[in-house]
C-alpha cells in the first residue's frame, strides 16, 4: 500500500538528513566539508532535539571518520556517514577496508571536484576515484531520489547476502543546496522498511569471538577478494527485490537504469546525476518538434548494470555518453563502461564521449541540445568532446 506522504520544500542535503533521522542509525561519525556540511549540521540538530538517538562521533578528520565507522560497524552497529571531495579522498584507504571487511554502512557523498586547483563545486571526480573500492554507488537526479535512495541503500547494504557499504551520491550545490518539492514518508513506515539491524558476526558478541582485519597473505587474500566479487554479484541480484518493496510503499520506480522516452528513440544521451533532469527537459522540447531523442539515466553505477544498458541501447543510431569527470590518459569513466558493455550486442550504436561540468561549470539545456544535434547530424570525432568548455 502506498504510504501517506508529507510534501515539504527542502534541499537535497536536508533530504539526506531526514532519511538519516528516520533510519536512526546507532553511530554516525563524520567530519565537516563543503558542500556536505548541511547534511551533518541538520542531522546533528535532529539528534540534539531528541529526534534520533544516534551516537554522533565528531572526529578530527575524514580518515578517522571512516575508521570510526569501520569500528562501529564491526562491533555490530548500524552506521552512516557523509562526506565530499577531498574528504572522501582522505578516507580512501579505509573506504577499501570497509568494503573488503564486508561492513554494511551508508555514506552520503555530496559530489564536489577534487583539488587541485581547489574548487568547492560539483563534479564526479571524488566518487569516480572510488569506483573500484568495492562500494555500491547510487546516483541521484534530485532531492526526492536522494531521500528514497538513502533509505533503500540502508536495506541493500545490510542484506545478509550482500553486506557491502553503499555510497549515495548527490550533486554538490545543484542538488544539495537547492530547495525542491520532496515527499517524506511517515517515520514508522521508514522504520519498518529498514527493520531492526541484525549484525553479522559482531565483535561485541563475546560468546562468539572472531577476528576482524587480520593479516591475509598469498594463502587466502585471493579467495577473500573472490568472495568480495561474488558479493557484488549478489548485490545485483538482491537489488530488484529490495527496490520492489520500497516501490510498493512510495509508488516510485528504482531500477538500475531509468529509460526516458527511450523505446522509439534513435539518438540517446547516457548520463547520471542532476544533468539527467536537464536532459529530460531537452528531450521533451525536442520531441515537440518530432526529434526521436531519449535519455538513459544510470542510477546504480556499482554494480554496473552493463547488460541492462546494452539491451536498452541495442539498435539505437547514435549515443552520447556524458561524464562529469575525466580519466587522464584514458576514456572517461562512464563512457568506458558503456562502450565495454556494448561490445557483445548485435546492433551497436555509434558512440561519442563528452566531458562536461567539471568544477561546477553549469550544464545547460543548450549543452544537451548540442550533443543531440551533433548525433543527428553525424558529427563524430575521436576522443572526448567537451560541453560548455571555452576554447
Amino acid at each position, binding site marked *: 500500500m502506498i504510504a501517506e506522504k508529507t*510534501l515539504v*520544500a527542502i534541499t537535497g542535503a536536508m533530504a539526506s538528513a531526514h532519511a538519516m533521522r528516520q533510519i536512526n542509525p546507532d553511530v554516525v561519525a563524520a567530519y565537516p566539508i563543503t558542500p556536505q556540511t548541511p547534511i551533518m549540521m541538520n542531522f546533528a540538530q535532529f539528534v540534539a532535539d531528541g529526534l534520533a538517538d544516534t551516537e554522533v562521533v565528531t572526529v578530527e578528520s575524514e580518515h578517522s571518520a571512516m575508521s570510526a565507522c569501520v569500528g562501529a560497524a564491526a562491533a555490530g552497529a548500524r552506521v552512516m556517514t557523509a562526506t565530499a571531495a577531498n574528504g572522501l579522498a582522505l578516507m580512501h584507504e579505509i573506504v577499501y577496508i570497509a568494503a573488503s571487511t564486508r561492513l554494511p554502512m551508508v555514506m552520503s557523498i555530496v559530489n564536489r571536484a577534487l583539488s587541485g586547483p581547489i574548487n*568547492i*563545486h560539483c563534479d564526479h571526480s571524488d566518487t569516480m576515484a572510488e569506483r573500484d573500492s568495492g562500494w555500491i554507488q547510487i546516483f541521484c*537526479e*534530485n532531492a526526492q531520489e536522494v531521500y528514497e535512495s538513502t533509505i533503500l541503500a540502508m536495506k541493500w547494504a545490510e542484506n545478509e547476502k550482500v553486506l557491502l557499504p553503499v555510497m549515495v551520491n548527490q*550533486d554538490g*550545490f*545543484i*542538488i544539495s*543546496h*537547492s*530547495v*525542491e*518539492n520532496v515527499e517524506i514518508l511517515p517515520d514508522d513506515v521508514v522504520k519498518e522498511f529498514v527493520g531492526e539491524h541484525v549484525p553479522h558476526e559482531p565483535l561485541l558478541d563475546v560468546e562468539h569471538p572472531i577476528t576482524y582485519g587480520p593479516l591475509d597473505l598469498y594463502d587466502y587474500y585471493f579467495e577473500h577478494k573472490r568472495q568480495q566479487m561474488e558479493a557484488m554479484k549478489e548485490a545485483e541480484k538482491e537489488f530488484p527485490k529490495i527496490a520492489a518493496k520500497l516501490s510498493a510503499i512510495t509508488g516510485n520506480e528504482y531500477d538500475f537504469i531509468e529509460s526516458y522516452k527511450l523505446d522509439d528513440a534513435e539518438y540517446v544521451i547516457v548520463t547520471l546525476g*542532476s*544533468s539527467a*533532469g*536537464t536532459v*529530460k*527537459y531537452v528531450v*521533451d522540447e525536442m520531441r515537440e518538434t518530432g526529434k526521436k531523442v531519449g535519455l538513459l539515466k544510470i542510477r546504480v553505477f556499482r554494480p554496473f548494470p552493463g547488460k541492462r544498458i546494452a539491451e536498452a541501447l541495442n539498435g539505437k543510431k547514435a549515443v552520447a555518453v556524458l561524464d562529469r569527470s575525466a580519466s587522464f590518459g584514458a576514456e572517461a569513466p562512464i563512457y568506458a563502461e558503456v562502450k565495454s558493455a556494448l561490445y557483445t550486442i548485435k546492433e551497436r550504436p555509434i558512440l561519442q564521449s563528452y566531458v562536461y561540468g567539471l568544477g561546477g561549470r*553549469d*550544464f*545547460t*539545456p543548450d549543452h544537451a541540445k548540442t550533443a543531440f544535434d551533433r548525433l543527428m547530424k553525424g558529427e563524430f570525432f575521436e576522443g572526448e568532446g567537451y560541453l560548455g568548455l571555452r576554447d
Partner: protein
Amino acid sequence: MEKKILEIRWHGRGGQGAKSAAQIVAEASLGAGKFIQAFPEYGAERAGAPMRAFTRISSNKITIHSAIEHPDVVVVIDPTLLSENILEGMKEDSILLVNAVLPPEEVKNKVGFKGKVCTVKATDIALEVIKEGRPNTPILGALAKIVDEISLEDLKKNFKNMFEKKIGTQRVDANIKAMQKGYEEVRVSG
C-alpha cells in the same frame, strides 16, 4: 500540456536575504500546489559580495537543474548593483523589479532596458515598518503585485509559517505589514 515554468532571478549582496526571498516565494507556491525550485549561486560566500539566487515555479514537475539563463522576472534587492550586467539573458517581455527610490522610467533609462520596469522603495518601507534595513519582505509584496502567478496571501501565510518560531509574532507581523505596503506602493513603468 502547459509546459511553462516561471523563472525569477534575484540579485543582492550576501546577507541581504536574496536567498531567503527566493525560497519564500518558492515555498509559498509549493503551498499552493505548485512544483518549485529555489537555489542560490554560490561563489566565495561573504557578506556584502554580489550574489544571485533563482526561483522556478511550475504546474508540472521541474526536471531542469541549471542556472536560469532567460528569466521572466529579475529582482534587484540592492540598487547599487544596477548595471547592464543585471539585464543578462532578459527577454523583451521580462520584468525588472528594483528596490529603488527612483521612479521606474529613470531606472529604465539608467540600465537601458526596453521592457517593463517596476520600482519600490523597499529599504525605506523596511526601515519605517520593520525598523530594520531588510528590504526583502517589501520586495516580495511588490513581486506579488506584478506577477500573476504569485499570490500575496500565500506569501504572507508562508512567511508566518516559516518565521514565526524563529523571529516571533511581533516581527512576523511587521514583515507582513511591510509586504502589504510593498504590494501597494510598487510603481510600474508606463
